[in-house]
C-alpha cells in the first residue's frame, strides 16, 4: 500500500478540490494515436478560470471532435507550486493529471495584462522552455487568445501564435492545420508559416519592429512576403447558431461565477470612450429569443444550476429583453431557478426588469455612473443623466432594495476637482435619497477604479495620470466618503499603473516580464501577491521607463505597437472620437441613431 504523488501533495495544500477535476460533465478521453492533445491553460486559479464562458466554449468545441482531446490546466496556488518545484513534478491537467509538457498544444486564455507573469510561470511549472525561440517541434506549440491578445506585443517572446478575435471557428482550423503538419512530421517553422494562412492568426516571429531614436516605433513589417501585414480579428458570422456549451462542467467547489452564463448578445455600440470591450467585440449580434430559451432549458437540465445570468456587455440592450425575462421567470421560476442581470443600464426600465427577476431570487443592483458630473460623462460618452440615475435609484429603493453598488472611475482625461467633488455630492445625494425611502438599513457600496488607457480605444492616445495625483484623488474621495451606510473600495494605484504600462506595451517589455518572473512576480492581480518593488527592479535592470508607456500622451500619427492588429474599427474613427471628447460632444449609439462609421460593418470583416 502506497500513497501516490498527487495525494501526497494534496494532503498538504489548501483547497485541494481545485486540482482534482472529476466534476460533473468533465470530459475524459482515451489517449489514442492520431489524437491531438491540447491543454486549455488559464493563468489564474481554478475559481477564476472556471468562471469564464469563453474558456468553457473552447473546451466544449474542441472535445466535440473525436480526434481532439482538450484538458484544463490552471495556475496552482503558491502552496502547491512550492511542492511541485520541490518534487520537480510538472504542473498537470485536471482530467488525467497529464503533465503540461505532454500536450501537443497549449492554449492560454488571456483576460488582462496582470496575468502575464502567470503565463510565464505556468510554462516554467510545465517544464516547457519559456521562450518561443528555445522551443522546437518537440515542445508543445504555445498559442494564446482572448481579449488580452488584442495588444499581444509584450508576450511575443513567449507565445508562438495568437488568435485575434472570436475563437469558436478558428480553433478548429488550427487543429486541422496542426493535424496535417503532424502527419507530415514537419518542422516548427513550417507549422508557423501555415498558421499565418488562417485569418485572425498572428505569428509574431514573422514580424520585425524598428524603433526611432526617441524610443517610439518606426515600422512594423512582416519579414516574409506571404505573411499578411494586417491581422484582422475573427468574428462569428452567425452568432445565433454559434456553439454554446449546453453541457458545461459544474465545478465541485465554489467559483466566482457559479451559474449558467447565457450570452444573449455580443458586442456593444454604446461607445464609451474608455471601454476596450466596447470597441473590440463589435459588431452587436443577438441570439434569438427562441434559441435562448432552448439553450437555457437544455443547460439547466444538464447542470442542475439554480441561476441563469443573462450575460453580455450591456444586457438590458437586448432588443427583446422584457419578453425574454418574462418568459424565463414564468418558465423557470416555479422550479426555484433564478434569472440575473450582471449590471444595469441606468434607467427605470432596467429597474423594472430587475423587479421582475426579484420574484424568484434576491438580486443585487449595480449601476455605473462612472463619473461625478454631466460634463465628464459627455467627455467619456457615457450618455446617461443624473436625473436618470436618481429616478432609477428612487424606483429601486421604493421597490424594496436596500443595497446598491455604484461604480466610478478616476483619472479620466480632463478630470477636474469639480468632477471629483461631483462624485462625493452624487454619493451623498444617493445616500439621503436612500435614507428617506429605505430608512436606516440602507447601504451604498462604492467602487472606484483608476482609468487605464487601453489599446484600440479612443483614449489610446491619452496619458495615464501620474500616480501621486491619483493617490491624492483617491484619498480625497475616501476621506469625504467616510460615513455610515457607505462602503468605499478602491483599486491599488500601483497596480493600475503597471496595467497601463503593459496595456500599451511593445515587444521590448518581454525581457522585463522575464525578469519580473525570475524575481518571483506572479498573481499580480491579487493584492496579497502583488510586489511592486520587484516590478520596479525588473524595469530598472532593463533600463526601461515605465512612464514612457503609461503616462506619456501619444501624438496623432504615432505608430502603436498593435498597429498591425485590426479590430475592424478604424483608427480615424477612434481619433475623431477622441477629438469629440475634448469638445465634450457625445456620439449616439448606432442602433438607435445613424451609423457612426466606425468601420466594423464594412466589407471584409463580416
Amino acid at each position: 500500500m502506497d500513497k501516490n504523488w498527487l495525494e501526497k501533495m494534496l494532503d498538504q495544500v489548501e483547497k485541494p478540490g481545485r486540482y482534482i477535476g472529476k466534476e460533473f460533465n468533465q470530459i475524459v478521453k482515451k489517449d489514442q494515436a492520431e489524437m491531438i492533445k491540447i491543454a486549455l491553460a488559464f493563468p489564474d486559479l481554478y475559481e477564476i478560470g472556471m468562471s469564464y464562458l469563453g474558456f468553457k466554449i473552447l473546451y466544449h468545441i474542441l472535445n466535440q471532435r473525436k480526434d481532439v482531446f482538450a484538458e484544463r490546466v490552471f495556475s496552482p496556488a503558491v502552496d502547491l507550486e512550492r511542492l511541485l518545484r520541490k518534487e520537480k513534478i510538472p504542473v498537470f491537467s485536471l482530467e488525467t493529471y497529464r503533465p503540461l509538457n505532454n500536450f501537443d498544444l497549449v492554449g492560454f486564455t488571456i483576460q488582462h495584462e496582470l496575468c502575464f507573469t502567470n503565463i510565464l510561470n505556468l510554462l516554467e511549472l510545465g517544464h516547457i522552455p519559456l521562450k518561443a525561440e528555445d522551443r522546437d517541434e518537440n515542445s508543445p506549440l504555445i498559442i494564446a487568445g482572448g481579449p488580452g491578445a488584442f495588444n499581444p506585443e509584450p508576450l511575443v517572446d513567449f507565445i508562438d501564435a495568437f488568435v485575434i478575435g472570436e475563437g469558436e471557428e478558428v480553433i478548429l482550423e488550427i487543429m486541422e492545420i496542426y493535424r496535417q503538419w503532424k502527419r507530415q512530421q514537419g518542422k516548427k517553422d513550417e507549422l508557423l508559416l501555415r498558421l499565418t494562412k488562417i485569418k485572425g492568426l498572428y505569428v509574431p516571429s514573422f514580424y520585425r519592429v524598428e524603433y526611432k531614436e526617441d524610443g517610439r516605433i518606426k515600422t512594423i513589417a512582416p519579414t516574409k512576403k506571404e505573411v499578411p501585414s494586417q491581422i484582422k480579428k475573427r468574428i462569428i458570422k452567425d452568432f445565433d447558431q454559434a456553439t454554446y456549451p449546453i453541457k458545461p462542467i459544474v465545478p465541485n467547489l465554489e467559483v466566482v461565477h457559479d451559474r449558467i452564463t447565457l450570452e444573449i448578445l455580443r458586442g456593444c455600440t454604446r461607445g464609451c470612450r474608455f471601454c476596450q470591450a466596447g470597441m473590440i467585440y463589435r459588431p452587436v449580434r443577438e441570439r434569438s429569443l427562441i434559441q435562448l430559451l432552448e439553450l437555457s432549458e437544455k443547460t439547466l437540465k444538464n447542470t442542475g444550476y439554480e441561476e441563469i445570468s443573462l450575460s453580455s456587455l450591456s444586457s438590458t440592450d437586448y432588443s427583446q429583453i422584457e419578453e425574454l425575462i418574462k418568459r424565463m421567470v414564468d418558465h423557470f421560476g416555479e422550479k426555484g431557478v433564478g434569472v440575473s442581470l450582471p449590471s444595469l443600464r441606468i434607467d427605470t426600465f432596467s429597474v423594472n426588469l430587475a423587479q421582475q427577476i426579484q420574484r424568484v431570487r434576491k438580486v443585487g443592483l449595480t449601476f455605473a455612473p462612472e463619473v461625478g458630473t454631466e460634463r465628464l460623462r459627455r467627455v467619456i460618452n457615457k450618455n446617461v443623466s443624473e436625473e436618470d440615475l436618481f429616478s432609477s435609484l428612487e424606483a429601486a429603493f421604493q421597490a424594496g432594495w436596500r443595497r446598491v453598488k455604484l461604480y466610478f472611475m478616476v483619472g479620466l482625461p480632463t478630470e477636474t476637482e469639480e468632477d471629483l467633488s461631483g462624485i462625493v455630492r452624487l454619493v451623498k445625494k444617493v445616500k439621503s435619497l436612500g435614507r428617506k425611502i429605505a430608512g436606516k438599513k440602507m447601504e451604498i457600496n462604492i467602487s472606484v477604479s483608476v482609468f487605464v488607457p487601453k489599446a484600440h480605444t479612443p483614449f489610446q492616445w491619452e496619458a495615464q495620470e501620474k500616480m501621486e495625483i491619483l493617490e491624492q484623488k483617491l484619498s480625497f474621495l475616501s476621506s469625504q466618503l467616510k460615513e455610515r451606510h457607505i462602503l468605499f473600495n478602491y483599486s491599488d494605484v500601483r497596480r493600475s499603473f503597471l496595467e497601463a504600462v503593459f496595456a500599451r506595451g511593445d515587444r521590448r517589455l518581454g525581457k522585463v516580464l522575464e525578469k519580473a518572473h525570475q524575481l518571483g512576480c506572479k498573481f499580480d492581480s491579487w493584492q496579497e501577491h502583488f510586489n511592486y518593488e520587484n516590478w520596479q527592479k525588473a524595469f530598472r535592470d532593463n533600463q526601461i521607463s515605465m512612464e514612457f508607456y503609461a503616462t506619456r500622451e501619444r501624438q496623432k500619427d504615432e505608430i502603436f505597437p498593435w498597429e498591425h492588429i485590426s479590430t475592424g474599427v478604424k483608427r480615424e474613427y477612434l481619433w475623431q472620437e477622441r477629438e469629440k471628447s475634448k469638445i465634450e460632444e457625445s456620439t449616439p449609439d448606432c442602433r438607435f441613431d445613424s451609423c457612426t462609421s466606425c468601420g466594423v460593418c464594412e466589407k471584409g470583416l463580416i
Partner: protein
Amino acid sequence: MERIIRIKYTKEGMMKYLSHLNLVQIFSRAIRRAELPVSISNGFNPRFRISFCPPLPLGINSQAEYLDIKVIESVNLKELQKRLNHALPEGIKVIKGKEIPSLSSSLSKTIDSALFIVFLDLKRKKNNQQAAININSNQILTLASEEQKDKAIRKNLIEREDNYRLIEINQEIRNFLQQKEMIIEKSKPEGVKRIDIRPFISIMQGLNYKKGVLELKLHLKIGPQGNINPCSLVEYWLNQSPYQGEIIQIYRQELYRQGRAVM
C-alpha cells in the same frame, strides 16, 4: 404528503478532497439534475430541504455518509438511487435508501460516534530501536536461511514477526490510553484553543500489521461539544510513541447512534 428519505452514500477517491460545504452544493445540483421531487424552502434564496450527517474532515474517505431528503410525493427508492447516482460526480455513490418517519430527529443531533479505519505506514523511530518485545527478525531469518531454505517457513516467520509487532504496538497503545488527559492545541482565528481529546476515544486498537502498514481501528465519540479529527489523535499518539509514521488512507466506516449503525 411530505416524506423523508434517508440515504447512505460513499465519498471516496479524489472526492475526499471536497469539503462539507462543497457537498451541500454538489447534492443540490445533483438533485436538480435528477429531477427529484424534493421540497424547496421559502424565502429569498430557495434551497432544497436536505440535511446532512456530521461533516467529514477533508482528506478522509467514507463508506457511510448519510443524508435526509424531504420529498413532496412518494418516490420509488430504487429509482431515486438510480437517478441520483447518474447525476452525482464520480466518487460519490448512493448505496441504499429508506423512508423514515417524518418526525425522526435529525442525523446531526442523534449521531454520537464514528468508526474510522486508519492505514498507517509505521516504523520505529531511529533513536528508539529497543523493542518492547525482544525480537530481531534478521537474526531469525539468518538462522532460518542457514538451517532451512523452505520459503513457506520464511513467509511464516515474517508473518510471525508482523504479529509480534502488532502485539507490541497494541501494548504501546494501551499504555498511551492510560493517560487521563490528552491536550492538543488547535489554532483558531480567535487564538490557540486547548482541547482534551481523551474523552472522545472509545476504542483505539491495531487490527493488523503487514509489510510495515498498520491497520488501526478508531472508534471516536461525536458529542454536542463537537468531535475530533482522527489525524490529530494519530499525530498526538505518534509523537509520544516510539514510532514514526505516515497516514496513507483513512476511512470513516460507519456512524452510530447509541451503539447501533445508522442504517
